[in-house]
C-alpha cells in the first residue's frame, strides 16, 4: 500500500484518467482550476486532448461533442460557471450523451466568495437546467473518495448515458491529505454499450430488450445518426407528437429513478441505536462525524447518515430512518437546501431540523455539538 500526499482536485484528475478520460475542455475558475491545469499536463501524455475554451458554455459543449466521437470527456467549474453550463447539461440529458461535470463549489450567489467553501449548489445540481428530468450527482468527502467517486461518475455516465455531476467542496478540492493506493486494487471500469447490428438496422434512440439505454456508436463508425435537443422519436429525428414527447421525457427520468438502488451510495455511522440522526455530506459530514463521536462520549445516542449520491436521493434509506429516530438534523453549508429534500422524505414521521451557514466558513465540531445539546445555532 503506497501513501501519497494529494490534493482533492488532483485526485479528481487521477480518478478521471483511471476511468478512461481522454478529453477535457474547460475554462479557468477558482476553486476548480487545478483540475484543468493537471488535465492539460497529463492528457497529451496518454494521447488524450485538452482544450481551454473561450467560455464555460463552450467548455461543456466541446466535452459533449468529444463524447460523441467515443471518448470519455469531462469539464470542471465552480458556481458561476456551473450556472452557465446548465443549458448544455440539459442538452446532454436530452440527447443522452455521457460526460462528467465537476463543480467545485464556492460561496454564492453570483461571484460570491470565490475562495471560500459553500454547499450552495445542491438544488442547482438537481434542477439547474430547465424542464423535467432526473440527474445523478455524487458528493465525496475526502481526497481518496474524490478519486473513487470520479471513477464512479464516469461509470454511471457511461452506463446510463447521462451527464453526471460531481460536487466537491472547495475545502475538499484544495485540501491535501494522505492518499492510500494499493497498486493491485481492482477497479471496475464501465464503457458504453455499442451497437453490433448493421447500420441500416440501427435506431439511435431505441432501447433494446434487457438494456437500460440505447446503444451508442461513435461518430465516424458508419452509423450516421442524428442527435438533437428537440423531442425525438426512437430514430433520433425531431417529433412534436405528444405521445412521443411523454414517452421520451418519462424514459429519461425513469432510467435513473428505476435504478436508484444501483446508483445510490451512502455511509451509515453509529446508527443502530441512534435516536438523533445527523444527515450531512462533503466537508460538513467530516465535522458531523467528529461531533457524533464527541456527543457519544457525552452519552447521546446519535449517528450520522452521509449520502454519497445526493441525487437521486437515498429516499428509501432516509424514509426508514425517519421512522426510527426522534430527530433528524441536516447539517450543510447553505441556508437549508438538502433539508428540503430530507424533510419531504421524512414526511412528518419525525422532527427535521437544519443547521447551516452561508458565510464561507466551515461548520465546526463545536457548533454541531452545541446545536445538538442546546438546539440552537451557536
Amino acid at each position, binding site marked *: 500500500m503506497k501513501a501519497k500526499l494529494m490534493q482533492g482536485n488532483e485526485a479528481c484528475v487521477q480518478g478521471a484518467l483511471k476511468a478512461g478520460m481522454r478529453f477535457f475542455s474547460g475554462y479557468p475558475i477558482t476553486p476548480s482550476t487545478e483540475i484543468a491545469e493537471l488535465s492539460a499536463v497529463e492528457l497529451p501524455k496518454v494521447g488524450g486532448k485538452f482544450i481551454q475554451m*473561450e*467560455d464555460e458554455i463552450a467548455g461543456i459543449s*466541446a466535452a459533449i461533442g468529444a463524447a*460523441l466521437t467515443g471518448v470519455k470527456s469531462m469539464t470542471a467549474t465552480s458556481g458561476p460557471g456551473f450556472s452557465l453550463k446548465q443549458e448544455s447539461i440539459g442538452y446532454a440529458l436530452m440527447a443522452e450523451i455521457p460526460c462528467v461535470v465537476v463543480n467545485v463549489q464556492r460561496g454564492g450567489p453570483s461571484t460570491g466568495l470565490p475562495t471560500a467553501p459553500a454547499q450552495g449548489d445542491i438544488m442547482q445540481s438537481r434542477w439547474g437546467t430547465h424542464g423535467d428530468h432526473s440527474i445523478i450527482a455524487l458528493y465525496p468527502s475526502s481526497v481518496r473518495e474524490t478519486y473513487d467517486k470520479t471513477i464512479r461518475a464516469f461509470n454511471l455516465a457511461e452506463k446510463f448515458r447521462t451527464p453526471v455531476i460531481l460536487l466537491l467542496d472547495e475545502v475538499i478540492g484544495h485540501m491535501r491529505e494522505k492518499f492510500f493506493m494499493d497498486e493491485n486494487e481492482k477497479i471496475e471500469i464501465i464503457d458504453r454499450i455499442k451497437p453490433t447490428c448493421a447500420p441500416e438496422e440501427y435506431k439511435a434512440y431505441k432501447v433494446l430488450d434487457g438494456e437500460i439505454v440505447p446503444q451508442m456508436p461513435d*461518430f*465516424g463508425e458508419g452509423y450516421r445518426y*442524428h442527435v438533437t435537443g428537440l423531442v425525438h422519436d426512437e430514430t433520433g429525428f*425531431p417529433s412534436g407528437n405528444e405521445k412521443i414527447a411523454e414517452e421520451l421525457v418519462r424514459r429519461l427520468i425513469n432510467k435513473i429513478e428505476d435504478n436508484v438502488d444501483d446508483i445510490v451510495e451512502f455511509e451509515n455511522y453509529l446508527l443502530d441505536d441512534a435516536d438523533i440522526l445527523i444527515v450531512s455530506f462533503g466537508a460538513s459530514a467530516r465535522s458531523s462525524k467528529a461531533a457524533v463521536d464527541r456527543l457519544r462520549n457525552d452519552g447521546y445516542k446519535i449517528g450520522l447518515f452521509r449520502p454519497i449520491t445526493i441525487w437521486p436521493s437515498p429516499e428509501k434509506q432516509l424514509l426508514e430512518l425517519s421512522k426510527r429516530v426522534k430527530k433528524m438534523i441536516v447539517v450543510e453549508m447553505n441556508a437549508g437546501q438538502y433539508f428540503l429534500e430530507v424533510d419531504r422524505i421524512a414526511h412528518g414521521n419525525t422532527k427535521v431540523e437544519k443547521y447551516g451557514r452561508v458565510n464561507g466558513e466551515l461548520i465546526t465540531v463545536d457548533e454541531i455539538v452545541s446545536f445538538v445539546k442546546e438546539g440552537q445555532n451557536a
Partner: protein
Amino acid sequence: MPSQLVEKYFRVENLPHIWCPGCGNGIVTRAIVKAIDNMNLNKDEVCIVSGIGCSSRASGYLDFNTLHTTHGRALAFATGIKLSKPELTVIVITGDGDAAAIGGNHLIHAARRNIDITTIVYNNHIYGMTGGQYSPTTPTGEKGTTAPYGNIDANFDLCDLVKGAGASFIARGTVYGAKLLEKQIENGIKNKGFSFIEALTICPTYYGRRNKKGSVVDMTTYLKDNAINISAWNKLPKEKKIGKFIVGEIYNNKRAEYTEEYDKIIKSL
C-alpha cells in the same frame, strides 16, 4: 422524384423540409452536398454540426453524422468533435443570429485557433424561426418585429469579422450564384484550417415582406445585381461601391492548424 444528388445525400424520409416557399436555404444546402459530392467524401467520415434557427434544421435532413446542438454553440460542439477525432470532416451549418449574436464568441475563437472546421453561415439578415426580429446582419435602417421604426444597430460584415479573428479561408457567395457557392464550399473544405463561407440567402417571409423587397425573384435578382467579385471590387472607385457587396474568395492564407499542432505536442511527449 428527388434528384440523384438528393437521394444520395439527404434523408429523404425526413422531407419535406420546414422552410417556407421561396426560402433560399435549400439552395445553400444543395451547394454543400454538391461540394461534398464533387470531393467524393465518404459520408461516414463527414460530420455536420448545426445550432438553432431555420438554417440549423438542415442537419436533420442530411445523411451524415449529424448534430443539432443548442443556440449559438455549434462551433463549440464541433471543436470537441474535431479535436477528439481529427480524421472527421467537420462542417458547421449556422445562421446569422446563431453565429454572430449568441454564438459570436465561439465564431471568433474557432477562427483564432484555425481549427479545421468549415463553417457555412446562411445569412438571411433576420431571425426567421422566431418570426422576424433584427439580427447582427440586418442592415441599419431596415425593419424587424423588434425594430419596428428601423434598425439603429450597425450591422456586422461577417467576412471582415472572421478575417480579423484569424480564419484562413474566407468566401462569400449568394443563392443566385449557386455554382460559385458550391465551389467556395469545396475550397473551404479543402483548406486545412478554419474556413468561413458566408452564403447570402433570402427570407421572403419575414425579411422581404416587412421591408418591401418584392418577390422571391426580386430578392434573388438583387443578390445578382449588387454582388461584385473581389477581383473587380478592388479596381472600383469609391462611389461605385455604395450599396454593393463583395463576393468570391476573399481571403486564403494557410497557417498552422490547431489539431495538427496538438498532435505535435502528443508526439513530442
